[in-house]
């Protein structure tokens, strides 16, 4: 971060035809949870979401490179304390992302008023909503793996016609198993997704996505397939003269030819009062329960031994937070302390042998996070992960500004 501060935030080539930017951010946080697997509570202090984001463009932005390097492999190798969170072999911990979070090259062209793009590399498939680290709460939602598809070898084509944008992605179905792992390129193309987004009026974004993902939880390809749907509405217009943002999203993933069905509803909003942001998130999401490792009850057995799960749990969360910019907006550095409180409840959703009341020795938990978000570089909080080509250009470019 200190090194970054010494770097020019933006370097522009002659005539503006080429440009490059680099920025970084991270959050120092202390997290408390009153619930833990096998009972008890927990507290941890970590540096989470440490990232470097770099952009480069050439030929008047017809050629673009977007990259995010994530250092969570070293700062949260055992995950971030997040009861209810899951994915990639972590349970009740938010997993560290892969080191190369995204590295995409896009070519963008125009045909009259129609904008076209083709993007390829490692990154997000065109599906669902923005990455949670680009949104409001520090706490990752439970639906992370229902509402986003990321860290894949992906090829995405996009078209933007007036207020409507369509994207289609081809990618490998397998989820990463550890931060240093590369996508299984042998499986490239075994999965696909499509996202349709409309911008009917100023500040409103409507989105619907579909994905067919082959064996996401088993890298070799013998796992069950997922069918995923996602829809969302996003509103970004001032309220009472102050910036206001709201998102409502629904997601559903079915697996094993419909044997398993997981759905999620999430709504979040923020209201900026000068340098102070107030925010709230509600989530109700189902997740699968898997056998956990004996010595690490926050990890599940990987690779899988079979396709069975222990049951399904329903997680309901209410999170409120407040953050404040300590530095003037528009500078190259930002400091944003925040506090966030979550109230979490869990219940069994349907039959199965997993009993959350026994496992957690309770079903209702509190979480409190105190943190300081640090950013260096002008794009530290305008960078939108997973948006490439036409998707990076489509209106409106919502700025939730990572107001943890």
């Amino acid at each position, binding site marked *: 971060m200190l090194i970054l501060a010494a770097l020019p935030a933006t370097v522009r080539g002659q005539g503006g035809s080429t440009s490059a930017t680099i920025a970084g951010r991270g959050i120092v946080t202390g997290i408390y949870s009153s619930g833990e697997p096998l009972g008890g509570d927990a507290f941890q202090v970590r540096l989470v979401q440490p990232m470097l984001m770099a952009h480069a463009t050439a030929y008047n932005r017809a050629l673009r490179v977007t990259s995010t390097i994530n250092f969570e492999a070293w700062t949260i190798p055992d995950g971030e304390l997040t009861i209810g969170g899951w994915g990639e072999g972590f349970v009740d911990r938010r997993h560290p992302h892969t080191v190369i979070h995204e590295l995409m090259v896009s070519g963008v062209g125009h045909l009259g008023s129609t904008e076209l793009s083709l993007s390829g590399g490692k990154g997000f498939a065109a599906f669902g909503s923005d990455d949670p680290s680009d949104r409001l709460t520090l706490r990752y939602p439970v639906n992370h793996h229902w509402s986003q598809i990321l860290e894949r070898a992906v090829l995405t084509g996009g078209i933007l016609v007036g207020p409507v944008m369509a994207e289609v992605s081809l990618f490998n179905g397998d989820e990463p198993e550890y931060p240093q792992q590369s996508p299984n390129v042998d499986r490239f193309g075994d999965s696909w997704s499509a996202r349709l987004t409309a911008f009917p009026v100023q500040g409103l974004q409507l989105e619907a996505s579909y994905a067919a993902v082959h064996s996401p939880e088993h890298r070799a390809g013998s796992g069950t397939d997922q069918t995923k749907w996602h829809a969302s509405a996003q509103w970004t217009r001032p309220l009472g003269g102050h910036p206001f943002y709201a998102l409502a999203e629904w997601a559903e993933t079915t697996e094993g030819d419909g044997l398993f069905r997981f759905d999620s509803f999430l709504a979040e909003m923020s209201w900026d009062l000068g340098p102070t942001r107030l925010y709230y998130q509600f989530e109700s999401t189902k997740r699968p329960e898997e056998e956990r490792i004996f010595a690490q009850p926050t990890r599940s057995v990987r690779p899988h031994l079979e396709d069975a799960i222990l049951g399904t749990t329903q997680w309901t969360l209410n999170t409120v937070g407040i953050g404040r910019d300590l530095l003037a907006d528009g500078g190259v550095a930002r400091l944003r302390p925040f506090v966030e409180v979550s109230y979490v409840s869990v219940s069994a959703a349907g039959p199965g042998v997993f009993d959350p009341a*026994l496992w957690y020795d309770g079903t209702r938990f509190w979480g409190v996070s105190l943190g300081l978000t640090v950013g260096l570089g002008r794009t530290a909080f305008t960078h939108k992960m997973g948006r490439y080509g036409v998707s990076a250009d489509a209106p409106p470019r919502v700025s939730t500004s990572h107001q943890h």
Partner: protein
Amino acid sequence: MMRIPTHSSVSWAAATLLLVAGCGGPDSAGPPPTRVISVSAGDGQTAPVTTAVQLTARVTDPAGSPEAGVSVSWSVVSGGGSIPASSATDADGKASATLTLGQIAGSQRARATADGVGNTPADFTVTAVAGPATQLKKSTGDGQTGWAGSPLPLAYAVTVQDEFNNPVVGATVDWAVASGGGTLSVSSSLTGTSGAASTVHTLGAAGATQTVVATSTSVAAVSISFTSTATVGIRLTSSVGVPANYGLHDTFVRDGLAFLCVWDEGVFIYDVGNGMAGGTINLPRLVGSVKTAGGNAHNAWWYHSPGGSKQYLFVGEEGPGSVGSSSSGSIHVVDVSNLAAPVEVGSYTLAGAGAHNFWVDENAEILYAAFYNGGVVALDISGALPSDLASRELARIQPGGAGNTFVWGVMQYEGGDIFASDMVSGFWRLRYNGGSFSVVGGGNNVPERFTSDLWVQGGYGYTGGWGNRGIQPGNAVKVWQVGAGAPVLVDSVITSGITTVSDVQVSADGKLLVFSAENGPNAGLAVYSLAGSPSQPVFLARYLVSQGLHTATVETIGGQTYVFAARNPANPALMIFDITSLVP
């Protein structure tokens, strides 16, 4: 200046060389022979070393008439014996001499010659053999360390010799276990051309001095002792890697063939001692394979009908499910008439439920299958099987009732009642009444754990545990007395550092309890003794496998007791362990 010889000068030199060579060589013509000497008797004899043999030569004139009074000279050419320097011919032209053979067994030669015979003497060859056995010596194999109950890697060998250390062929050597027990591959053997005889010692139990004594009637009052040390434990004999695709789940072993159920990769058939593909326990060889429909190959049973047919292999498919409530997957019927090219010919599907382990009553031709939430199903597997076995369903039962049934495994006990292990509702005793099942007793008897596999033998049942029920992890093997009614819990074996006992079996002789374990630092294979009391297993040995073992199948091949275990991913493999040394 070098002079190049002309053609004529080269020819002259060559002729000169030939002449010189002819004058000095053994084949020189010289003066023509005036006599002929030949072998008359004694050539080609066989006699013990240092004994005397009679040799006779005959001298004639060139026309063949005998010449009397001619002095014949004798000499030993090889073998180190002795012979008189000369003897005179008699009226028939014959002269004899006594050859005393040397001490070294083998071919020995002597020569007779006389004046006037030129360069054509008479040569005699006598084969000297060993004399009487006087020595019994230790050769190889002493002082080894091996596994109790298993053959030593080196044979014990002794050598029988005469007084001159020549090997005595055909001597009888008797072998006997003097202490420590065990067995010998032969108790009596004959010495070979090297004078050696051998036997292989399969060691007895550990702890005792393992001594074998060799004696020979040919060498009185001499005995040779071999002493070895027996150790006990679980010995990995070999492993066979399988594709890292959910790995190996279960292995069925019969007639020296191992049927490996390798999920979506199908069923692999290995020769592990059958001989049809040259495979052995130490070096299994693939015979054939088949991918069953739907993949998820989990378990198998090679059915031998009462009529002798070995046509069908039943394969369980374990599809996706939610433990305790839902499951999927069929039983697939594979024609293995040609083991090198099996082919699926039928299946049975129970709507809303999935197959897990099964058991076949081969005499009654009934397959009993665990179907998780579907309970237990009985199928008629007699005769030629149709492609859809729905019509072969005989009976079905959910022993714990709907919502309280998730049957892991079934096993028939001594041709009678069926025992079932239910993950949710525990250990059941069922009875098939020819068209329907009834509950004899049991059930709802393991409330603190999820129940996994089972084995019933010798009046006792053994059930494992699975996962974590929130109350207790599945780290127990429960011991049940199975009398006439409901099973009665009599003991539990708790293993720390695991959450799952994934497979349970008792050896055919009832002496060993074997189970595989998963998920934890003590995952792997565990062996307990039932020799003292089948109700109170006593720990013998553990073999740790960090990935855990998904299943363990105990089978006896060639008198040795093996465990065929499935090592979990990553690096999934069939691991074959020899546990013979642990047999009490």
